[in-house]
């Protein structure tokens, strides 16, 4: 059938599935939020005057409430945060950008203290807070905690390649500082003042072996991922198909009675912050000798052995030793949420793209469409009086999903050598689309500079992923000349009975919701006053 009319969905009591890009997606990494990668973005920079640059944003520490003081959200000084680039297609990193953090107390490392007690008999007492007054810069005497970091480029495999420090292009120094999280408007003056304060920590950088200047920023941002998270967790407690003729999400289709409609209130993450590691680099420095397509993923690792200090100090709450052991991995959004099975999620987090053959069955025989089918098939048939036997695509193995998740699409974002491996792939030769012209449905809507050709902050990866897993690639896409419908030849409409439907979670997103300059993600929400979150 060409168009299914969905009525009220009936939950069938089946297992739920997570649908946050990578927020607390695996049992073990949920125990270590500071090492938990949540989203990776990579796109050809669309900031004015930055053509020829690639921006990469790796987000960590999920679901931050902006009022989470007094410690807020420092990255892990015992962690190793990496952004890896494969520019040959063998599934092995050719370039790795490593971030390592150091915590320092204010007052030259001693911590800010106040003299407490009667005159002549005072005691110097360290304060319990991270600031004792307004903050305007790293050298502010009121700031009681500073997190600095080093940035290293490794050429070749991350553990055995040649490592070189990346330097501040202005000072030549190799230590960078991240801004304090947005404690609140009283501590920083206003949202605009915080934006100015944080902007001081965007550094121009000199990258070894790279002509041209890049940029780096690490700091708190407003969560840019948009999703109807709670409802999805709750057995998809809505009809996940567009209920009106929204010009972006359902421009040519028929509204579905009872289907969800686009509403910003459906984005439950709107009041959360995140911590971003942001890089902007000349594309020429990333693409190597390949075909101009690069693959990227981010990892977090910690040392294999941790010994808790029974007499902890600020500097030494624990001791870590041994080999770096990877605990988080993120390339394409949603893979470890809705593709990899629960028993293997932490194994996926510890794995490398070169070993992805072990996860192939999760892609070729995905469980998510079957879960959606189980949740909604009976309701659809009861409501419509139809006799559909299956809503899920039936083309096995799902070569359409292999292309989407593991190989990229020939002629668009496939690396020179094709090794099935999960990473975010970007063709650096595809000109960036200006923010005002971007389509949040990316390639599926004819915007070739969007997801899955890289990922921009304004791309609606939830809706794209929903549509792809339900068989959107079995139908022609408007990617031919002048947007002509083009059949990818990966599967046929008959394989995907609802593959042409405008699946959605009802949480809209677009490039206009974000700033158009590096680091693109918005200034974080303040911890106070109440109501500003």
């Amino acid at each position, binding site marked *: 059938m060409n168009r299914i009319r969905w009525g009220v969905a009936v939950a069938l009591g089946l297992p739920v599935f997570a649908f946050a890009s990578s927020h607390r997606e695996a049992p073990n990494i949920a125990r270590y939020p500071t090492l938990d990668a949540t989203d990776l973005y990579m796109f050809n920079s669309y900031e004015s005057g930055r053509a020829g640059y690639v921006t990469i944003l790796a987000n960590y520490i999920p679901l931050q409430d902006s009022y989470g003081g007094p410690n807020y959200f420092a990255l892990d000084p015992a962690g190793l945060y990496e952004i890896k680039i494969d520019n040959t297609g063998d599934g092995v990193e050719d370039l790795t950008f490593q971030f390592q953090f150091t915590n320092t107390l204010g007052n030259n490392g001693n911590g800010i203290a106040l003299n407490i007690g009667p005159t002549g008999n005072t005691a110097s007492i360290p304060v319990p807070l991270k600031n004792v007054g307004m903050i305007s810069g790293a050298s502010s005497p009121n700031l009681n905690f500073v997190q600095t970091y080093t940035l290293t480029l490794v050429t070749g495999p991350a553990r055995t390649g040649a490592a070189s420090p990346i330097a501040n292009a202005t000072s030549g120094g190799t230590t960078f500082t991240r801004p304090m999280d947005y404690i609140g408007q009283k501590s920083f003056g206003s949202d605009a003042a915080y934006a100015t304060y944080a902007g001081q920590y965007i550094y121009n950088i000199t990258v070894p072996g790279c002509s041209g200047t890049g940029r780096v920023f690490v700091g708190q941002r407003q969560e840019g991922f948009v999703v109807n998270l709670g409802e999805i967790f709750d057995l998809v407690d809505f009809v996940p198909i567009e209920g009106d003729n929204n010009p972006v999400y359902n421009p040519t289709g028929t509204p579905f009675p009872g289907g969800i409609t686009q509403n910003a209130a459906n984005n439950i993450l709107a009041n959360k912050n995140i911590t971003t590691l942001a890089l902007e680099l000349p594309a020429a420095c990333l693409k190597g000798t390949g075909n101009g397509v690069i693959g990227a993923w981010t990892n977090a690792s910690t040392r*294999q*052995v941790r*010994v808790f200090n029974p007499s902890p100090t600020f500097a030494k709450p624990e*001791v870590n*030793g*041994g*080999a*770096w052991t990877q605990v988080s991995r993120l390339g394409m959004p949603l893979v470890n949420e809705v593709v990899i099975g629960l028993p293997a999620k932490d194994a996926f987090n510890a794995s490398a793209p070169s070993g992805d053959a072990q996860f192939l069955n999760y892609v070729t025989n995905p469980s998510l469409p079957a879960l959606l089918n189980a949740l909604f098939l009976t309701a659809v048939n009861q409501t419509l009086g139809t006799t559909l036997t299956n809503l899920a695509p039936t083309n096995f193995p799902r070569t359409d999903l292999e292309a989407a998740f593991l190989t990229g699409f020939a002629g668009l974002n496939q690396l020179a050598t094709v090794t099935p491996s999960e990473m975010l792939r970007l063709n650096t030769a595809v000109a960036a689309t200006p923010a005002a012209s971007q389509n949040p449905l990316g390639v599926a809507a004819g915007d070739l500079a969007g997801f899955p050709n890289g990922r921009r902050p304004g791309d609606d990866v939830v809706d794209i992923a929903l549509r792809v897993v339900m068989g959107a690639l079995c139908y022609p896409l408007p990617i031919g000349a002048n947007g002509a419908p083009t059949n990818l030849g990966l599967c046929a409409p008959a394989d995907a009975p609802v593959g042409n439907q405008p699946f959605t979670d009802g949480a809209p997103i677009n490039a206009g919701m974000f700033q158009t300059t590096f680091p693109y993600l918005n200034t974080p929400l303040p911890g106070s006053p109440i109501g500003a979150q």
Partner: protein
Amino acid sequence: MQNPRAARTLKLHWRLLAAAGAVAALVSACHNNDDNAYTPPPVNTAVPFTIFAQQAFANAANSTPVAVNNINFDFDSNDDPTAFNNLIAEGSF
């Protein structure tokens, strides 16, 4: 007269030293340059966790993590609060 705590520690260290060679060989056997490969221990021997941890601390950060799925650990130092004192004193943060 010998300090009882020192004697206990010495006894522990003696036992651990005796096991160190075998553990080192086991840990070495678990190393592999291929991240996706794993060589199981040759025998089902209980490995003192203290020695294992000390051996891990001796590894370079850029070495390969030791696979642990097929190792049976012996936590014989669980009741000794001083078992890792040397690591805390000398380890890096």
